């Protein structure tokens, strides 16, 4: 009967229930069930639906407006009870810290607490903007992100295309299994592996360097190598995992198009450029938006572990600075201000990129 479910007083009458009514078993079942309908009302519903199948939204508002929120709670108390714990968690662990951001406008002193500390307006922010590390932090953070975006974006796509073009099933399966695996290695182990392999004393990388006749290099200690090591180890770890989504997009392309192209004599390269790439474009754009919105958001955990006194010049990013100043030096108000600045820039970037993408390509996140 192709009709939408009707909502009446929070109860839905779908085609299935309607069928019951039509076949004759429905009336008393519904009456017994809901206890609030008169037979007349049910029948009226049936006829109305029959006459005007699409009046779904209108009917929703037929419910008396006087009874408020509590009426819904009474109807499905279990649903609301279940939601209490998650909501409590949400409020306490997500929204209370947001309220805690007010200390970025304070000369916060843990002893005096939120109420006793002195308000100082934007002084913390001003201090950060005029601090000598400001430029360096921004340059490092944005530099790493942009590098990561440029290098890390195309590689999973290439990998996905390559796996997709591999016709032997065993080869495809094992390629997927192997390339996904490093994703599950923890950050600590990842940096540990880097330390071991790049070690100037007995790391494999330096054995190779020495074999080629150069002196050993302390890769982890050189500021100029930090970005590359950070980005390329990330690509090593995540390219397989990021390719999953592209592989899925590729398999959802209609094979008929491919066949038609083959019949028309298109080469594999041509098919990649004119069928596969356009096919995964929407996915790619969404991921690009997500990544571009994260430009000020470099993974704290890895950067912090890769930091050492020798490479601080390039390895110090906003989030590690917040940790250092806030939790190590106890300058809570100031470091919260730095973190807040970072979050706001992130939010604005994300929304802007999303808007631009929505305007230009009609693909957007929200």
């Amino acid at each position, binding site marked *: 009967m192709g009709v939408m479910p009707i909502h009446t007083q*929070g109860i*839905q009458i*779908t085609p299935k229930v309607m069928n019951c009514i039509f076949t004759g078993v429905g009336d008393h079942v519904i009456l017994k069930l809901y206890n609030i309908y008169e037979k007349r009302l049910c029948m009226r519903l049936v006829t109305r639906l029959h006459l005007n199948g699409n009046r779904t939204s209108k009917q929703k508002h037929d419910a008396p407006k006087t009874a408020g*929120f509590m009426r*819904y709670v009474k*109807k*499905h*108390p279990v*649903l*609301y009870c*279940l*939601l209490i*714990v*998650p*909501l409590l*968690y*949400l409020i306490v*662990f997500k*929204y209370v*810290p*947001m309220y*805690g*951001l007010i200390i970025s406008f304070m000369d916060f002193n843990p002893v005096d607490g939120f109420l006793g500390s002195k308000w100082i307006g934007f002084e913390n922010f001003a201090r950060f903007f005029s601090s000598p590390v400001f430029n360096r932090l921004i340059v490092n953070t944005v530099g790493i992100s942009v590098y990561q975006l440029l290098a890390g974006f195309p590689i999973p796509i290439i*990998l996905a295309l*390559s*796996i997709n*073009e*591999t016709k032997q099933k065993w080869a495809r399966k*094992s*390629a997927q*299994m*192997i390339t996904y695996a*490093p994703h*599950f*290695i*923890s950050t600590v*182990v990842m*940096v*540990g*592996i880097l330390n*071991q*392999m790049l070690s100037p004393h*007995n790391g494999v990388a330096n054995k190779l360097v020495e074999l080629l006749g150069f002196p050993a290099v302390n890769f982890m200690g050189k500021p100029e190598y930090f970005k590359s090591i950070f980005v390329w180890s990330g690509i*090593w770890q995540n390219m*397989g995992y990021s390719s999953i989504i592209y592989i*899925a997009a590729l398999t959802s392309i209609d094979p008929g198009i491919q066949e038609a192209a083959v019949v028309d004599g298109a*080469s594999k*390269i041509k098919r990649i450029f004119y069928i596969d790439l356009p096919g995964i474009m929407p*996915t790619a754009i969404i991921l690009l938006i997500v990544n571009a919105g994260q430009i000020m958001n470099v993974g704290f*955990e890895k950067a912090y572990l890769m930091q050492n006194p020798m490479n601080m010049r390039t390895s110090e990013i906003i989030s590690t600075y917040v*940790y250092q100043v806030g*939790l190590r030096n106890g300058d*809570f108000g100031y*470091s*919260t201000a730095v973190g807040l600045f*970072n979050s706001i820039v*992130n*939010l604005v970037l*994300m929304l802007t990129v999303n808007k631009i993408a929505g305007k230009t390509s009609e693909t957007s*996140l929200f």
Partner: protein
Amino acid sequence: MKYQIRQSKADTVFGVINAALLGFVILIVLYPLVFILSASFSDPVAVMSGRVWLWPISPTLKGYSAVFSNNSIVASYINSIIYTVAGTLVNVCVTIMAAYPLSRKELYGRNVFMFLFSFTMLFSGGMIPSYLLVRGLKLIDTRWALIIPVALGVWDLIITRTYLQSNIPQELYEAAEIDGAGDFRVLVQIVLPLSTPILAVITLFYAIRHWNSYFDALLYLKSMRLFPLQLTLRNILILNTVDLSMLTDVEEIAQRQGIAELLKYSLIVVASAPVLLIYPFVQKYFIKGIMIGSLKG
């Protein structure tokens, strides 16, 4: 009879190049993993002098015996198991408690609730306010600090809710209601059994996150006896604080240093083994999780 279009020369060349490219990628991904594994089984002297590059040299289990005779490693391994099991249990329960009501059309105001949850993915209080909160709740240096503040992942909530909405038809709820089942019974007897795939997905996501995380422990824990494995790993692998005196059965200093180096490789293997061993068997669930997650996009 099957007809096949003959491959052109260009396509054959392309196939060869493609296979070579993929082979190269696989080698690059595999090499570090094989190297670490080989080194962990090699002789300490060979590891120190850098002679190991692909296969183990004079294989021993010295590294592993050093790992398992180190008390702080074993203790933190047990801690990690506790955090992972307990934390994941809490995570899955809280996620269901949120996802089930939010997937029901009968929940009035669910869009408002959903917005409240989703918004925290875009904007958050950040590190310092969260730390002050955990400190205010007197959770610092307790096991709860690694469980309660991360009791719910919003992303996991979203994929669970998406799954429930698209896989459990409204008619089923109505049928259950007609049969006289309350919302809670519907959850336990109908929704949960029907959503085992998504439960597997989020359980795996959460468990791996617990197993691999170190930062919360770094922020919130002070006593060594509470440290999870990743934090002990950090101390040994990155800060290089191997307590040589713990390696009691070895006499000479050089030998000790060799063992300390070897221990790192063995430790990497021991720490990653649980995840990498179960991963091939649950791979399809991960892919499923990603696919559900991408539905929203």
